[in-house]
């Protein structure tokens, strides 16, 4: 039993190393796939056990006791990662051509699983760093600048966490979660950690986890990093790896919630610190969704969309009620499956066409029907259309926000949903429908492993959409209380009810009617894809809007004022200043003149002397 956890965590890593070492086509893929499949098997095996009691695994490394524990809560996270992981492996069989990618993809898989299962900060930090590093290496291969941006921000986050860990260690003398939690509880009465220190800890951890989750304003790495990695891997990167940040926020609640509440109290009836998280989430949703709408590149679009969707989860956690947590957790799952699916679809498109921009695409539905079907499921789920998983989770989050009397936040959810619809519609139309550019006439359906991978992710979208109770029931068990009522097909909250089955039946019926109408009665006309619209502008050569090109340019013009300010450029500016500062420092300190150097010695002596004399 004990070795189960070790195998669970390290099987992907070992498989990755082996795949890298035997870099032969065929063997590499087989090993990699097995490595990614093992966690699924083990998690499936332990499903029954974790609900009643936890599975532990402890190992002493370098004087640190690393504790891994599989409880109901982190089983959930690990299972989400495992589903996306195996889909990623299948996708990579089709899209990856090197042992290098297998190594780091599986290494990050290990990292993610380890982060979810760690019950002490050293193991957590170690695997966190491993995960960051591995995903960084995936990006580095394709783009130095974006990968460095990602890594620098991640490392800043990781080091912030390190500092936080060290402070906690200094204050409590412990590194494992259980003891720290208890010590912080005790500290409520002792007060060894001052208000300022609590705030510092909160900020440090929020930075650390916020970077990974892509929370505003630390999201700037995400578009570049998501789009510059192998797309099959991005399904994992965005679907599972960003959840580590979300998990971290949850951990923050578990460990420090009481302490933070005691120090900062409430604000308009909400936990003050949670309020901050909620607003960060809300801003992330809005900003990222707006930016997603304006993108011209599929990868960028989904990257921003991913940031926005993770914002939902943060927002849900920020609500701070148990319903909020349930909604957030549900959204963790649904985001993983629909966004993973999206990226696999993107991978298929890019693999088969070699194009990434909307303007080069069109009419692919005929050529890649299965991929299109999968894409459609993902679109429906993402934009929150029942009966998909995305609707159920968003509905729960919305309910939670309303119930917690956070209308503005709820408004952000609505706005985000609308924007999400705006950008997926464009994806749907520009890529799949309309006139096909002639160079795409020879495009074929995506290879089989990739299709299987998509199917694996598509099934939960529908399954948990039709039967959301499966998830909420598990969440109820994990929290040990009845948060969301209802049965498999029905969700009941204090303020509302959502009957997925009913909706499904109605929807199917509606579709059937619409189909009949379409088949027998409707008159349709074909619109050439070159149709443009000007949104009131005079017709000129370079202001030429179509669904494939600059579709939302009027919106961009409307937002002109806000787009002038970019956190990305701001960070670049800071980095530039730091580099220039480094140059100045180096040139003026190490100026090559030994006499200056002697002066440094004399000055040190002088300081010593003054310190001695005074």
């Amino acid at each position, binding site marked *: 039993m004990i070795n189960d956890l070790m195998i669970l965590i390290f099987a992907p890593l070992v498989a990755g190393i082996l795949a890298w070492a035997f870099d032969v086509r065929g063997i590499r893929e087989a090993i990699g796939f097995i490595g990614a499949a093992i966690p699924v098997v083990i998690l499936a095996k332990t499903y029954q056990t974790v609900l009643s009691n936890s599975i532990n695994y402890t190992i002493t490394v370098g004087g640190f006791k690393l504790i891994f524990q599989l409880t109901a809560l982190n089983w959930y996270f690990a299972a989400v990662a495992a589903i996306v992981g195996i889909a990623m492996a299948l996708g990579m069989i089709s899209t990856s051509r090197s042992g290098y990618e297998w190594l780091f993809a599986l290494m990050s898989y290990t990292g993610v699983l380890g982060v979810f299962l760690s019950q002490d900060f050293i193991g957590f930090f170690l695997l966190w760093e491993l995960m960051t590093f591995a995903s960084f290496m995936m990006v580095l291969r394709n783009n130095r600048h974006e990968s460095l941006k990602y890594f620098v921000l991640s490392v800043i986050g990781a080091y912030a966490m390190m500092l936080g860990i060290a402070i906690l260690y200094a204050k409590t003398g412990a590194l494992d979660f259980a003891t720290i939690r208890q010590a912080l509880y005790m500290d409520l009465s002792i007060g060894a950690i001052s208000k300022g220190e609590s705030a510092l800890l909160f900020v440090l951890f929020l930075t650390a986890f916020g970077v990974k989750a892509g929370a505003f304003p630390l999201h700037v790495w995400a578009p570049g990093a998501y789009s510059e990695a192998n797309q099959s891997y991005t399904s994992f990167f965005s679907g599972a790896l960003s959840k580590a940040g979300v998990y971290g926020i949850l951990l923050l609640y578990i460990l420090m919630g009481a302490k933070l509440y005691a120090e900062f109290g409430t604000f308009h009836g909400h936990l003050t610190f949670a309020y901050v998280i909620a607003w960060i989430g809300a801003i992330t949703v809005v900003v990222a969704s707006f930016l997603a709408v304006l993108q011209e590149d599929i990868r960028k679009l989904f990257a921003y969309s991913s940031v926005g969707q993770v914002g939902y989860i943060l927002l849900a956690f920020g609500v701070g009620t148990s319903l909020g947590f349930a909604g957030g957790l549900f959204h963790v799952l649904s985001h993983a499956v629909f966004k993973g699916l999206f990226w696999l679809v993107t991978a298929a498109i890019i693999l088969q066409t070699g194009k990434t921009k909307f303007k080069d695409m069109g009419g692919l539905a005929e050529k890649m029907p299965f991929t299109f079907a999968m894409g459609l499921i993902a679109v429906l789920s993402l934009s929150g259309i029942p009966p998909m998983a995305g609707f159920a989770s968003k509905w729960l989050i919305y309910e939670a926000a309303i119930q917690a009397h956070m209308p503005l936040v709820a408004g952000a959810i609505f706005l985000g949903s609308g924007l999400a619809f705006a950008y997926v519609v464009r994806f749907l139309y520009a890529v799949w429908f309309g006139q096909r550019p002639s160079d795409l006439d020879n495009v074929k359906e995506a290879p089989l492993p990739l299709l299987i991978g998509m199917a694996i992710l598509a099934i939960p979208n529908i399954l948990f959409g039709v039967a959301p109770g499966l998830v909420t029931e598990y969440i109820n068990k994990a929290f040990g209380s009845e948060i969301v009522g209802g049965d498999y097909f029905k969700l009941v909250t204090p303020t509302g009810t959502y009957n997925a089955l009913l909706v499904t039946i109605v929807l199917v019926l509606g579709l059937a009617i619409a189909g009949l109408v379409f088949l027998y009665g409707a008159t349709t006309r074909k619109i050439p894809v070159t149709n443009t619209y000007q949104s009131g502008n005079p017709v000129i050569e370079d202001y030429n809007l179509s669904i494939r090109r600059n579709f939302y340019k009027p919106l961009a013009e409307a937002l002109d004022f806000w787009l002038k300010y970019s956190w990305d450029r701001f960070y670049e500016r800071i980095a530039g200043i730091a580099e220039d500062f480094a140059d100045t420092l*180096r*040139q003026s300190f*190490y*100026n*090559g*003149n*030994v*006499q200056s150097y*002697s*002066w440094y010695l*004399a000055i040190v002596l002088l300081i010593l002397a003054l310190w001695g004399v005074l």
Partner: protein
Amino acid sequence: MIHISVYYFGAISLILIGLYAVLVKKNLLKMLIGLSIMETGVNLLLISVGYISGRSAPILSEGVGPNQAVDPIPQALVLTAIVIGVATTAMALSVAIILYEKYGTLNVEEIRRLRG
């Protein structure tokens, strides 16, 4: 003000004068002369520390008893230090000779190819 012996004073003065040469003179040989003077000063300081008023050299012949001699240890140390000093000086001067061959100058402000 502090009262110290003239030997201490002389020794510390030598150290400071030597350091002054290193800090102010731009000629490499001048700086090395400064270092050499500094070393002499330090040696003098060490010997002064070991001196005991009214006692004679620690050579225990002809009626010099164990309680009539000065401390032999600093003297032993200074013997070592002097030799080390001359060794450093010799090394430094050969480096100076190479520098002059390569750069054509001994001005330390112009010997600045390595920096940054």
